[in-house]
């Protein structure tokens, strides 16, 4: 994690994943690129943790955009956009991987505790190979370009 996100920022991008697990790195890489592209009004966090720690990372933000690898059985590289602001995103999409509670569990816990930010958008990129030491697969690398563009648009919309 590059920073702990303790400061209050109206829009916060959180990229999740594991740097050394192939396509599971896509959320981290997207956040890294977005850091260069967004202005100072948007805070960007790369994190290799998830689960309940996400509650802490979201604290103080009005809009949170989460980017993570997803697994729903579709082809690698497919991008899912899920709006968690008002209702659960379902449990099947984001893999539990090495994290105790999945993203959806953490979001629901935050909602129950009354600490979920007003707007939470989840971008899930369907992962293929997550074996240790692999680079991004071709289809997920392509999706990475696309998701960066989509999140930038999302930020513009959120500013408006």
């Amino acid at each position: 994690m590059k920073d702990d996100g303790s400061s209050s920022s109206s829009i916060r991008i959180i990229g999740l994943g594991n740097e050394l697990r192939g396509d599971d790195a896509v959320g981290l890489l997207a956040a890294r690129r977005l850091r260069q592209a967004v202005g100072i009004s948007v805070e960007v966090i790369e994190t290799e943790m998830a689960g309940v720690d996400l509650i802490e990372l979201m604290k103080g933000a009005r809009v949170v955009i989460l980017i993570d690898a997803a697994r729903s059985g579709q082809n690698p590289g497919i991008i899912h956009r899920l709006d968690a602001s008002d209702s659960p995103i379902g449990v099947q999409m984001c893999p539990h991987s090495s994290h105790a509670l999945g993203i959806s569990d953490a979001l629901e816990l935050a909602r129950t505790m009354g600490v979920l930010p007003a707007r939470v958008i989840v971008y899930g990129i369907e992962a293929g190979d997550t074996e240790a030491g692999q680079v991004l697969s071709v289809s997920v690398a392509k999706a990475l370009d696309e998701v960066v563009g989509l999140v930038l648009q999302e930020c513009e919309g959120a500013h408006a």
Partner: protein
Amino acid sequence: MPEETAQTRTIAVDMVARVEGEGALRVTVKGETVQEVELRIFEPPRFFEAFLRGRHYEEVPDIVARICGICPVAYQMSAVHALEQIFGLRVEGAIRDLRRLLYCGEWIESHALHVYMLQAPDFLGYDSAISMAKDHAAVVTRGLRLKKAGNAIMTLLGGRSVHPVSVKVGGFSRVPLRGELEGLKEELLWARDAAVETVRWVADFEYPDFALNYNYVALRHPDEYPVNEGWVAASSGLQISASEFERHFIEHQVAYSNALHCTLQGSPYLVGPLARLNVNQEDLTPLAKQVLTDRRIELPLRNPFHGIIARSVEILYALEESLRLMERYEAPPLSAVPITVRSGTGMACTEAPRGILYHRYVVDGDGVIREAKIIPPTSQNQSRIEQDLRLFMPRLLRLSDKEAALACERVIRCYDPCISCATHFLNLEIRRESIA
């Protein structure tokens, strides 16, 4: 024997929820007899073993930290101790204390997560921490804050709270100033009191009557509750050094899983908080002993469901120990001991939150890893989990498939298996066959 039609009944649950990562369990029951219990776990450590070969030793702490999102410090610590054994290095004084403090941070955050978010819902009758939070918001808030106290230690010493970057062979890339540690004190004092409350809280849960005879295996140290160092001690009497580990603890392949099962003298054994607490009970702090006495909890604990008590006691211990280490800390002149690279083989065991984590490395004269071997606690407990499920299953046979599956999940959760040190997807399947 009355003649019955052969019949197979299958119970399947998509995933054992609230267990780190995923895996699969299959139970086959014939009539009233449990025939097979197969816990399938895939293990990334195996893939990482291959990935480590050919890497420079300096890269190892950063790589192994990514094996597990919950216990990165454990992987780093077993790695640096094993590598330091090769280089003939002994880390003492303030750097040793900082490592112990960092490890305490990991115990606190991992145990708090398990106690509050993963296992407490089982005892209070909820299907998840989310539903528990609706009725017990204050308790969940306490659990999250306790976990955060552990995270705070890891963030300060590790540079970031998951996958710390500052651990290196010989010490740290940077050490904190005394004042930085003092900044944590107030929160850790709160957390210590919260940990006392946690032990009292879990001590009052209702536990199934399920006492077993375990061979407990944990590190044992002459001066302290074991974290980074010690002999490998079993309640059966074995006491060996980490260098002898693979001679006594034998791994074998089972057909239904790509995880290796580990046995001691051919039998399953138990590692983790319950084993650690039982083997090292005299090294607990007076406060931890007092809280146990007040709640009439007598050690050794023989019931796997009491793992939540052991974890809670260790949260308290780790907080008291953190405060003690911070109190005596003075920043060392060097953040790391200088290293002279040499070839050799090194082995180390440290106490991960879930139990003994063994690493062995073979390094050449250029400091390049030629071989890596990692035996995580979960694969050591796997045979024992299966055995305990076999013993527990008879009392579940009258339940519906769904209830039986949920009860199996509750048993598995007692051991806090890190199935992600392992992999994705845990499917639970119970096959019931009537006697033909």
